[in-house]
């Protein structure tokens, strides 16, 4: 190949190609599902899967932010869980208290996330250690304050408006999917068009060089972790809206799934490159995969193994591409 052709940037660069792959995988899985169990890919079937995917996708928004700067958020499960419980206990199922309860819950998520960010950026604690410790702290706080979910308010339901937001439809789509679409637009815009988004990518590419160019690296880091906490809490709210009540351990699946969605979507695990749209595709194809496996009547343990294999295979594939590209 001549120098001129190798230097030109193809429209389908590596990142866009990966996003495309992730979406294609989702579509293929839908087709497989339809073949195994007719009705799997009916409009209502697709809608149901997308609703489940939206919970993963919302958590993955936060995870995308922190992975873009080479970090990770392992505190997702109990920040989400704490958010769900805080939502029901502070609202007690009354619509009148929904707004303050929402603000309190989202504020809690953002504050816990900001603490994660401060630990990473200011104290220099590795993200894995900081967020894992925070997960433990949140677990302890949640169990302690709720008396192991025995408190009188713990059994409260989510306010009807919140339940309606998840279950009701608007223009043929469940409102939760409209919320997700709004998040996709806002997050993608933030990353692509704003100074904050640009700083996210520069910090992810080279924090030292960004610092020496006058970028407020620790500030950016703290805000990104705060966003991750915010989205975890938001997912917790959505989930109590979906199920009506909070439960212990409801956040557990979202740690692995959110990271998996980000990786499947082609966000570079060491930071600096990738798009939220990729994570969205990852969340959808992962959720379809789970549903297909369920359609095959695969038991829980089998699904776990398939998950793990898929992630390893993708990382291996993307790693290869790295060397060749």
């Amino acid at each position, binding site marked *: 190949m001549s120098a001129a052709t190798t230097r030109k940037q193809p429209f389908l660069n590596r990142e866009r190609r990966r996003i495309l792959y992730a979406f294609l995988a989702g579509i293929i899985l839908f087709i497989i599902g339809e073949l195994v169990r007719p009705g799997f890919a009916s409009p209502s079937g697709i809608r149901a899967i997308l609703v489940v995917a939206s919970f993963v996708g919302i958590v993955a928004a936060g995870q995308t932010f922190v992975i873009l700067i080479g970090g990770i958020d392992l505190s997702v499960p109990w920040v989400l869980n704490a958010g769900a419980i805080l939502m029901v206990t502070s609202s007690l199922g009354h619509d009148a208290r929904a707004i303050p309860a929402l603000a309190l819950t989202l504020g809690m998520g953002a504050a816990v996330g900001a603490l994660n960010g401060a630990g990473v950026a200011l104290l220099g604690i590795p993200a894995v250690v900081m967020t894992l410790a925070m997960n433990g702290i949140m677990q302890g706080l949640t169990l302690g304050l709720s008396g192991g979910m025995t408190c009188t308010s713990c059994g409260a339901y989510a306010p009807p408006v919140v339940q309606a937001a998840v279950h009701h439809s608007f223009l043929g789509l469940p409102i939760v999917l409209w919320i997700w679409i709004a998040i996709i637009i806002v997050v993608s815009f933030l990353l692509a068009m704003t100074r904050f988004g640009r*700083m996210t990518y520069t910090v992810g590419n080279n924090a030292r060089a960004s610092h020496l160019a006058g970028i407020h690296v620790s500030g950016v880091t703290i805000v990104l972790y705060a966003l991750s906490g915010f989205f975890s809490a938001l997912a917790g709210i959505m989930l109590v809206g979906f199920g009506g009540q909070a439960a212990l351990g409801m956040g557990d699946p979202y740690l692995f799934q959110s990271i998996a969605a980000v990786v499947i979507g082609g966000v570079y695990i060491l930071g600096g490159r990738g798009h939220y749209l990729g994570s969205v595709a990852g969340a959808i194809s992962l959720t379809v995969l789970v549903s297909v496996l369920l359609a095959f009547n695969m038991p829980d343990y089998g699904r776990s193994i398939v998950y793990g294999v898929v992630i390893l295979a993708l990382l291996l594939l993307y790693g290869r591409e790295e060397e060749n590209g």
Partner: protein
Amino acid sequence: MTIAAVEAVDIGKAYGGVAALTKASFTAQAGEVHALVGENGAGKSTLIKIMGGRVRPDSGEIRIGGQAVSLNGPQAAHHLGAWTVFQELTLLPWMTVAENLLLQQEPRSSLGLISRQATLRDADALLARYGVMHIDPRALVEDISLAERQTVEIVRAVSHAPKILFLDEPTSSLVEREVEWLFGQIRRLREQGCSIVFTSHRWAEIRSIADRITIFRGGADVGTFTDIDEDEAVRLMTGRRVEALYPPLTPRPAAAPVMLEARSLSGPNLRQVSFALHQGEVLGVGGLAGHGHRELFRTVFGDAHASGGTLTVQGKEKKFRSPRAAIASGIALVPEDRKTEGLLLRMSVRDNASLAILKRLTRFGILKPQEERRAAQHVVDSLRVRTAGIGLAVGALSGGNQQKVLLGRWLETECQILLLYDVTRGVDVATKHEIYELVASLARSGHAILFYSSDAEELAHLCHRVLVMREGVVAAELHAPGITAEDIVSAAVRDHRAA
């Protein structure tokens, strides 16, 4: 005709579109000391890495004892009797000197376990055999000095009785006494019929030890000589005469105001440093590596904190807590290592060029893409950055063009004071020339420039004054006109020689 001990034939190697070597050849006989000479970026280090089996060439052939060989790792080279001392040291820092010396040939006890005692004993004997008595084999490598590490590295290579020995800049971190020791070893190996190939920037050393010299320019050899004088060699290396490389020095205006003043600045590796930098002045900073230059630049830029002393910018005393604060006061830094400290290699030329002016390109938090493109294009046009476009990843550009993008980033800001740290390192000669012209024109237009360089020649030609640092202190201040590279070097090493 005898068969050459080692031959490189038309070796080519490119790193991501940038050619390090195009058609590099040389031939060394048994019992010969052969010097590879060339400018930074001429490809010598790459060639040594290829000969040592650490890097695979894209094209060309390596012949050892007349046989074409394929070296798919340092081990393969070792089997053929070729040992290499690379420029980046390869010792394991958390192991002892003895363990490093006997790596992979550790003496075993009867149970097949490595014997610590025997390792120490053997290492002691080895060091004694090569006359290195001042290094403790029990010391951890990370605790010994750079020169000592280099010595251990050389002893390790020599101890294998190599048939061919490659040395990449072996003397760069050694002082005179150690250089003499090394040359003693080289002469001994030569008598035993070993073929020694080394690179060096120090002409006096090359003259005193090399039998033949091959000169490289731009990734290819331009000739092999047995006798050549320095002027001719420099002409061949650079393709131009020395004087033409540097622009004439414009005297700085007599009454120029002081832009930056340091008084008794102290900190790690920095003791009581004072200087005043005037508008329109290029103030050079020189001396041996590791004597406080880096700390000085970092402290002035707010990246390190002074433990004492004051810093005044345009008459106002400042205490910078971060580079951001320094930038806000009109200071810019082009750092030592453009790849790790300067550029975002995978991001585009545009993203790199606009990094320091993002705030100006933003309204309500949203970037203005058209203005950003315009600013980036301005950097490319005004500094003549050779790139296929502003969307190209900056890592795909040559070193010189990368450096231009980095300089351009700061020229888009309103900065008045430029801290340039070894900006011509690893840059081709043509770009060096452009950078010199740029520095001179920036000074003429009223910028104040603090200019560190590891190249004394460059300081001598480019600066109005040169501060020579030694052990964190300004050891000498030299004034143009009439500064020579020899003045700078001798001021930098004076005490070493006395000791």
